[in-house]
């Protein structure tokens, strides 16, 4: 067994080796370790290996019935449970929030069935299961990000037949995505995508960076960490290995723009972070969506 700290090299191959070496115990006090049975985990891991080998390729897998409803993170949960090792430190977020109900219940399920340590601090986490955000702290090669994906295929909006969409992926025929982008620029002079922005992976497949906001997309480009995407309802996984080019689809004479907020966070006062509206001291205000980092900053201010 090896600790995930060995994930240091730059290539997909090291990510692969690290994935392969993630040995798990089989039982925890009479129950299956990490909830899933061995053959389910093998199936998911095999799909993940293929996904890492072919970055951005939507890889089908036999999605299991999970104790959360499909569309509530069952894909992310399966990826996490199939890859987690006893030494991992786990963080689970939903909309950047560690304390939302969905995040809490899934964290408890994973922690109870494995006994791993949990944290809200992204800097010490080695496995982060996330929905809607990438933690705003600097992440390194020791982190594996697991995304809960609602709709895996960026072509879905334009082509509903899966067979036709697969053919289009195979031929690199992404004209419909460009057409959607043209329509947006012609009508609104900007792109309409608020999240799930389509990105080209290493000059090959185009994926949906789902469901993170545009703000987080540049962080995927040449990221040191491994990103695994799991869609349980759609029974598909895909991956971005470390140090991979992630290029947002955009016209050569139009810039890719991320969300900008005029105001600082109403809670910690930081500028330039991704803000969402919430009630602060009885009033609607914009505050950091990454709650753990926001809370840490508030605490630091008090200390200073």
């Amino acid at each position, binding site marked *: 067994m090896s600790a995930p700290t060995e994930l240091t090299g730059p290539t997909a191959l090291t990510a692969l080796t690290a994935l392969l070496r993630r040995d798990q115990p089989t039982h925890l006090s009479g129950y299956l370790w990490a909830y899933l049975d061995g053959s389910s985990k093998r199936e998911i891991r095999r799909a993940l290996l293929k996904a890492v080998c072919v970055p951005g390729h939507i890889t089908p897998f036999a999605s299991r019935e999970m104790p959360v409803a499909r569309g509530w993170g069952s894909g992310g949960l399966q990826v996490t449970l199939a890859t987690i090792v006893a030494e991992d430190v786990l963080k689970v977020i939903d909309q950047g929030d560690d304390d939302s109900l969905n995040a809490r219940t899934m964290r408890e399920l994973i922690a109870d069935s494995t006994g791993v340590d949990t944290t809200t601090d992204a800097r010490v986490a080695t496995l982060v299961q996330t929905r809607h955000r990438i933690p705003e702290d600097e992440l390194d090669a020791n982190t594996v990000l697991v995304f809960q994906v609602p709709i895996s295929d960026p072509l879905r909006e334009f082509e509903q037949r899966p067979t036709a969409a697969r053919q289009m992926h*195979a*031929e*690199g*025929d992404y*004209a*419909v995505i*460009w*057409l959607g982008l*043209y*329509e947006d*620029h*012609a*009508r609104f002079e900007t792109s309409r995508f608020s999240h799930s922005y389509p990105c080209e992976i290493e000059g090959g497949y185009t994926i949906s960076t789902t469901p993170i906001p545009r703000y987080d997309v540049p962080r995927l480009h040449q990221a040191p960490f491994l990103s695994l995407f799991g869609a349980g309802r759609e029974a598909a996984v895909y991956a971005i290995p470390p140090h991979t080019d992630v290029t947002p689809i955009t*016209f*050569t*004479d*139009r810039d890719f723009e991320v969300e900008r907020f005029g105001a600082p966070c109403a809670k910690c006062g930081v500028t330039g972070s991704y803000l969402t509206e919430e009630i602060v001291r009885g009033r609607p205000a914009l505050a950091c969506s990454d709650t753990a980092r926001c809370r840490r900053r508030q605490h630091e201010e008090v200390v200073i």
Partner: protein
Amino acid sequence: MSGPVLEVRELTVRYGGTLGCDAVSFDVHEGEVLGIVGESGSGKSTVLGCCGLDLHPSGGWVRLSGMDTAGVVGAQRRRLRNEGIGIVRQAAHEELRLEISAGGNIVERLLATGYRGFQAIRDRAERVYTEVELPAGRMDAAVATFSGGMRQRVQIARALVSEPAVLLLDEPTTGLDVSVQARILDLIRGLQRRTGVAMVVVSHDLAVIRMLADQLLVMRDGRVVESGVTDRVLSDPRHPYTQLLVSSRLEV
């Protein structure tokens, strides 16, 4: 001048046991318009389908600008179709995306062939949009809000934007009222003269054929029964079937 833009030889298509077309041959040179006329089920659209790379021939071959199209498959076939061929169909919704704007429908073929500059494709779309005499200011409106005649104009603009070598027209004005029909035909003829694009027009309407086509094929039961210069065929029909066609035109 080099060889024919479109070369069809011994083209045969079988749908199971049924014969779509049988040993059809013709050439279309740059600047030339070929008409194909015949009753429903005579194989006109089958021939056009092979020229437009929608169908694979069971026998014979189709050459586009000297290139045999039989071995071209997948992404290359799509590219050839987007760059080399323009298609205008009778039913606009088969070729256009109704929920997308006219401009979007026009630029789609450019995007499919790798154009990535927004302003460049927008300018190009605007140019053809004006050329086909569509109303100014409606370019960003969804095609679903357009009338039948306007949709045909959008199709023509979409077909011509990539400056194809061949333009294929499948009953381009069928189902439109006569005044709109006349204006569209006038537009097609004008554009054809100006650009010199090679054209194949399929129609059951002899008036359309007489107005547009230089050469004419008369088809029946999948076979070519008569061919020649349009004026000759229509004014001096030799095959009994052609004679029947010409004589069964309704006079006003």
